[in-house]
């Protein structure tokens, strides 16, 4: 896998096409595994797509007593293995983003796995392939770095000053999963 998911929350228009696409995906039995949520419901109508963050140190997998949630070589955190999942729901409590959900009929957990069967062959995940406003993109690393640099330039053009808490918005190499 040479591509990465790139989310830009401010581009989200709240159309929920990503959710629909996710529901359409095979094996998902009409349940979406990504969510569109409001940034601040009282303040604005701005929504953002909530996908699995594919954590490097995934809380859901760490708290799984059966090691059912596994990490691929590319770092994708998969949904629970059916053979191993014991239905304890620890992952649903552990995840800070609320991505793992529990199917009470099947007694199994399900979560976004970046459509691993597609993305391992560099095909965009369902949600990224349908997003009309490019809030969710499946792009090359170089393109991502370009976008981030453009973002920093725009920040500087808009006259924002970097602070200790958000310096990566000005020099993207300072921060991120791409440099330890």
């Amino acid at each position, binding site marked *: *896998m*040479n*591509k*990465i998911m790139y989310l830009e929350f401010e581009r989200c228009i709240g159309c929920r096409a990503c959710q629909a696409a996710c529901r359409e995906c095979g094996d998902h039995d009409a349940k979406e595994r990504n969510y569109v949520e409001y940034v601040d419901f009282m303040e604005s109508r701005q929504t953002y797509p909530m996908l699995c963050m*594919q954590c*490097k*140190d*995934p809380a859901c*997998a*760490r708290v799984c007593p059966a*090691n059912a*949630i*596994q*990490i*691929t*070589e*590319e*770092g*994708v955190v*998969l949904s629970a*293995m059916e053979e191993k999942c014991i239905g304890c729901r620890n992952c649903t409590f552990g995840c800070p983003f609320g991505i793992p959900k529990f199917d009470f009929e099947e007694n199994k957990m399900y979560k976004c796995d970046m459509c691993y069967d597609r993305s391992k062959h560099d095909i965009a995940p369902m949600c990224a392939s349908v997003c009309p406003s490019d809030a969710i993109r499946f792009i*090359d*690393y*170089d393109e991502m770095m370009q976008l981030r640099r453009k973002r920093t330039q725009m920040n500087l053009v808009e006259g924002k000053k970097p602070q200790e808490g958000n310096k990566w918005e000005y020099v993207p190499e300072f921060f991120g*999963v*791409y440099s*330890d």
Partner: protein
Amino acid sequence: MVDEKNNQNQRQNQRKADDDMINLVDNLNRSEDLRFNRRAFLKSAVGASLTLGIATLPFSIKAMMDDREEDSEKVEIGKLSELPKGESLEFHYPTDSEPALLVHTKNGELKAYNNKCTHLQCPVFYEKKEEVLLCPCHRGFFNVDSGQPMAGPPQRELPKILLEVKGDVVYAVGREVRHG
């Protein structure tokens, strides 16, 4: 440069250090779970048992070759006239390193056994009064007529040497290691 980028992309969500406190998700690697599955365990178990079985093959072959009939050669032991009843004579058969005992019992029978005790290889001698073969080290008794252990630590019989008397001369013509 491009290779470096690619490597970065390949391992985008993987740790880059080997520190114990960083490798907290080592047990969640999908590749390892696929590699060390039940089938792999069965494979290695079967392979190990086959290996062990084949490793013991040379010993089995050696044992089978040792079981074959020894080439019986005629070896002169001594003269019967020099061995009155109730006396014994030491000789070596089939090789010089294997001591043996020729016994002329009170009944007038000739018996010969290798006199290395089957317990811990002390020399067994003929006890005239009791008509037994006695091992002095740990008080092991063997029957003169059959060479079978009667009392004490030895559990196996003494190898029996087959005799042949021609005129006045006693010959050893063969040996039965396991008999009776």
